């Protein structure tokens, strides 16, 4: 009886552990967040973290952003790539404390386009990297910020 009870307890504990593991599983449904690239404090290090080297300047990357942003807390940035076979777009705000703002992967069924609002601490170049066929392309656009959006 005593043994059975122990066995039952052990089983319950194991089951509990499985449940916990199960509860944590939704996290695994998302791709791993690139801590190295997003934690980088310079655009160069962020690009290293993304594995981007020798990006070739391209006029086929379209960046729509205000020339002057009055409110750095909400700067609308629209990015599109006309490079055939573009599979990913990364947006970097060069002078932000952590330059990499986002990276998007486009699978079959999606166009290489994204629009998002970002915070900008100060006037900075916005650099966009497009990846197509294993090659990287780059375009930049300067956004002047009159009131920064990062501090309190």
């Amino acid at each position, binding site marked *: 009886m005593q043994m059975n009870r122990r066995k039952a307890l052990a089983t319950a504990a194991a089951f509990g552990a499985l449940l916990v593991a199960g509860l*944590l599983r939704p*996290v695994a449904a*998302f791709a791993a967040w690139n801590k190295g690239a997003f934690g980088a404090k310079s655009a160069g290090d962020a690009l290293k973290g993304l594995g981007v080297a020798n990006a070739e300047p391209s006029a086929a990357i379209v960046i729509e952003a205000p020339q002057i942003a009055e409110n750095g807390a909400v700067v609308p940035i629209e990015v599109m790539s006309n490079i055939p076979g573009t599979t990913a777009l990364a947006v970097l705000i060069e002078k932000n404390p952590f330059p990499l703002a986002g990276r998007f992967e*486009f*699978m079959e*069924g*999606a166009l290489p386009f994204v629009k998002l609002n970002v915070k900008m601490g100060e006037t900075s170049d916005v650099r966009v990297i497009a990846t197509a066929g294993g090659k990287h392309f780059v375009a930049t656009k300067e956004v002047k910020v009159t009131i920064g959006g990062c501090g*309190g």
Partner: protein
Amino acid sequence: MRATLGAGFTDVRVLMSHAMETGQRKDASGKVIPLHFIQNVTAKLNGKTVIEGEVSQAVSRNPVFSFRLKGGQKGDKLELSWLDNTGVTNKTDGTIA
């Protein structure tokens, strides 16, 4: 979420309610408000993943994302989900109109 058929593509716009704290702001007592931001964003069309995004705390509070899908049809099902740095996740469903 709003998804409408446009000229040759489906325009998807989604709002996510989130504080997107940068970890640099201080509250009234001078204490730093901890980092709290969405890290992953996934878009699915009829159950198939079409966009996988990773973002940083630089994305503005209550993020609004716009995406474009090709080949979408009226009534197609869309699912947008996110995961933040504290493990909280949320999901919005929509239909192409």
